[in-house]
């Protein structure tokens, strides 16, 4: 969670066009946001509804979207199991915003997972003893 919040803080620091951003899972649970919990919940809900509405009845899978509105723009980007939604100032540099959002998501995916317990070494299987061939005559 702290890693996600740090990644979002970096995102808003890098991109001056991004006003708010929220990271959520596929069920709509907020993982981190640049706004307070109440607003983050509403942002996540609206972002998930927008993404689901845009994705339904499509042959191809939706990976990202942007909506250009009069007062600003809205972006939603998805990776394997997370979404990031952001709002920007009007007429942003679309390619740059997508790049920043994808980098942020990718950075979250690279956060080191807990080290897995090392598998116990198996004892080497005993080989059947090889017998030397003995001459029949001896």
């Amino acid at each position: 969670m702290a890693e996600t919040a740090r990644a979002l803080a970096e995102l808003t620091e890098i991109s001056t066009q991004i006003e708010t951003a929220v990271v959520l899972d596929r069920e709509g649970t907020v993982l981190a946001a640049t706004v307070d919990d109440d607003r983050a919940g509403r942002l996540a809900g609206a972002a998930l509804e927008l993404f689901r509405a845009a994705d339904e009845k499509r042959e191809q899978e939706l990976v990202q979207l942007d909506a250009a509105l009069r007062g600003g723009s809205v972006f939603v980007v998805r990776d394997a199991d997370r979404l990031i939604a952001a709002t920007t100032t009007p007429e942003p540099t679309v390619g740059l915003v997508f790049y920043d959002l994808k980098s942020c998501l990718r950075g979250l995916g690279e956060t080191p997972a807990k080290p897995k317990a090392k598998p116990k070494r198996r004892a080497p299987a005993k080989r059947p003893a090889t017998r030397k061939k003995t001459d029949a005559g001896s």
Partner: protein
Amino acid sequence: MRARSALTVLGAALGSAAGAIFLRRRTVRRRERVELYFDDGSLLALTQGSPEAEPLLLHARELLAAARD
């Protein structure tokens, strides 16, 4: 004299054509739209006024309003 007036008419015609193009471009740019990007690299642009765009624009407006409350 005749050539000068012909040039004036031509200049005025070109000026109004350029103005019309500029205004049209500005109107198109100001129209709300949604762009959808799919995993195969295809893009679908939906402009305000199309039946498919309206519900998506509604959700997008809600999102923007929630961000600015």
